[in-house]
């Protein structure tokens, strides 16, 4: 990649709210501890998670959005199942008792974009707020759409990421649905350097669609993937975050044929959290350029090039793995 320029957007903060491996119930997260006792109890857990993840990302960056004019602040959040449970609760209330028993303070959260909108309210982000929902890749798409809009001049800083909470128990795949949130804070490299800050690295995101009917290794699939590689075409290690599917197989085959090695396949749960988590992990380990690819069985493919760990500019110092852990 090119050397960093002042206007390049870099990830200066990472915040994650994820259940510990041994979590047996929902007690691992308490919004009152994370956010305070204000009106957060009316939010779905996914909304509480992402507020907490954003707060951690900004703390990790050592700054706040208040240093930037409100109209230059932006938010882009991906989610697939973030309001499925609250919609389920609402619907059962309506079916059994009627709409009058819905909580007016919670009712707005039937609208899934409010998960992102609530982050915008919290940080007075008036540049724009985006809510993305493509299967599995929505969190990466949130980064892509947010970064594109910032590059277009629609804002200067961006909180982007993903948030999910488990599907209602009766729904298909509920037991393997994602839970938690990861947020990344993007600032211009020059601004980070000016305040003596540090960054993890850069993310460059591209997307494509690979029909499940295209079999792996076909010439067309190879052309589509090759045309969608972000940044220069060079052999890099790949983390492919995908459920087992013909599309995932095709993506893995195409990347291997293009010289990307190794292609490490990582499982994903229902939702779009795991792909963003893989981006955060790659940024934190800072072992050099790599590609994180999110892939849905429905054909959505989003490729993120991570340039981490090597950049140093001005007073800024890359974050070490130890410092970030």
């Amino acid at each position, binding site marked *: 990649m090119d050397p960093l320029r002042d206007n390049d957007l870099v990830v200066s903060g990472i915040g994650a709210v994820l259940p510990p491996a041994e979590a047996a119930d929902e007690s691992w997260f308490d919004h009152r501890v994370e956010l305070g006792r204000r009106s957060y109890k009316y939010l779905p857990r996914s909304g509480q998670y992402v507020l907490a993840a954003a707060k951690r990302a900004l703390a990790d960056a050592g700054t706040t959005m208040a240093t930037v004019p409100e109209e230059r602040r*932006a*938010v882009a959040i991906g989610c*697939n*199942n973030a309001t499925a449970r609250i*919609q*389920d609760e*609402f*619907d*059962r209330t*309506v*079916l059994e008792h009627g*709409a*009058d028993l*819905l909580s*007016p303070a919670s*009712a*707005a*959260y*039937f*609208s*899934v*974009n*409010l998960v*992102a*909108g609530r982050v*915008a*309210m919290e940080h007075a982000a*008036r*540049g*724009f*707020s*985006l*809510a*993305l*929902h*493509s*299967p599995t890749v929505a969190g990466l798409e949130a980064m892509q*759409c947010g970064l*594109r*809009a910032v*590059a*277009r001049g629609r804002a200067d800083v961006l909180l982007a990421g993903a948030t999910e909470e488990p599907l209602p128990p*009766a*729904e*298909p*795949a509920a037991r393997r*649905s994602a839970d938690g949130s990861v947020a990344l804070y993007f600032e211009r490299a020059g601004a980070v350097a000016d305040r003596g800050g540090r960054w993890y690295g850069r993310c460059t995101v*591209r*997307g*494509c*669609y690979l*029909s*499940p*009917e295209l079999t792996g290794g076909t010439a067309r699939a190879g052309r589509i993937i090759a*045309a969608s590689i972000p940044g220069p075409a060079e052999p890099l290690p790949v983390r492919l975050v995908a459920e087992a599917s013909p599309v995932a197989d095709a993506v893995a085959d195409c990347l291997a044929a293009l010289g990307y090695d190794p292609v490490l396949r990582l499982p994903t749960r229902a939702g779009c959290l795991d792909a963003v988590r893989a981006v955060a992990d790659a940024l934190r380990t800072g072992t050099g350029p790599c590609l994180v690819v999110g892939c*849905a*069985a*429905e*054909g*959505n493919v989003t490729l993120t090039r991570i340039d981490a760990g090597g950049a140093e500019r001005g007073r800024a110092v890359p974050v070490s793995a130890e410092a970030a852990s």
Partner: protein
Amino acid sequence: MVDVVITGLGAASRLGIGVDALSRGMAEVRYAPPEPIADPGARVPVPLFYRLPDEQLPPGPDEALGLPVGRANLLALDSARQATRSARLVPDPDTRVSVLIGSSVADVHVVERWRTDGYPQRSRWVPVFSAASAIAADLGADGGAVSLSNACSGSGYALAIGADMIAAGETDVVVAGGMETYSRVALACFNRLGALDPNGIRPFDRHRAGSILAEGAGCLVLESAEHAHRRGAPVLARLLGSGWSCDGHHATAPDPTGTQIARAMRAALDDAGATPDDIDFLVPHGTGTERNDATESVAMATVFGDRLAKIPLYSLKALIGHTGGASAALAVAAAVLFCQQGWLPPNVPVAEPDPDCPVLLPADRTPLPGRTGMVNAYAFGGNNMSLIVAGGE
């Protein structure tokens, strides 16, 4: 700057399937009162909804990509097919086509039906927002398939993001739009928020008391003027610019100062290289809620000054209801038709205009002095979008 043009349109609303149905319905002011939704589970004070008659639904698959196809996906799929047909877009491995579809709740009614009729015996996850994927598969599009919400401004954002993708050289052609259908949860929550009018939708009326939700879908084909010219595509209109902002104020209520929605309008004008004096007509968001219409009027007055009283508005939701995530795409489709025909259709008459909303809503067919219009779209979460559309000449 890349000149982004609109080369295809597709529409579905209570006026029928297709752009011709939309055009005729507007020209003939085919108003109809909303009817109670046929859902015994919808225990709500205001059960009104505008829904397409079942017999008008386009034929379509029950499943796509192994997922159930609900009414929203079906209408979006059909609208995308209409749009690509009118754009004379044919699959070409050398043309990168991207799909972006906005919606508020997508096909969540499929899950709502499971709750009353029983859950399916399947282990595979059913992501509710999958319309863009299904459309991309149907069209043979490989430049990405993005499903987004941004609630009732969703398809406005789909169009704006799509135009940015073309300008950035990421894709050649964009099929962008939105869709919405009946959802028991959405209807119930709008009821609980006091956002529905038991007397029907009456934007800018002094006695308006809320919106009426509606089914619909709209899709447009965008590409650069150069790309359209190269493939001999019909240029219907130009998408000159977009303005984005977020109130960051309240979950459902607009910031009453209208500061951010005025900023979105100005940003769209700047993006288009235009001034307020260049705007010949407006298609407002105009939902019929007391706060939306008042706030939008304040913001329009801020941007257009005294001239606001002379710019004709076309209040589309008064005729077809509030189609949520589809509403911006349908409004832009209508604006394209206005640019082509050079006149605004008669508005549904406003019984008693609100003096706090000093806007011009002609009840007669109104010739346009020029061919440049602004379309506004707002949403829960304070997501604001303004788009500038101009004639294709």
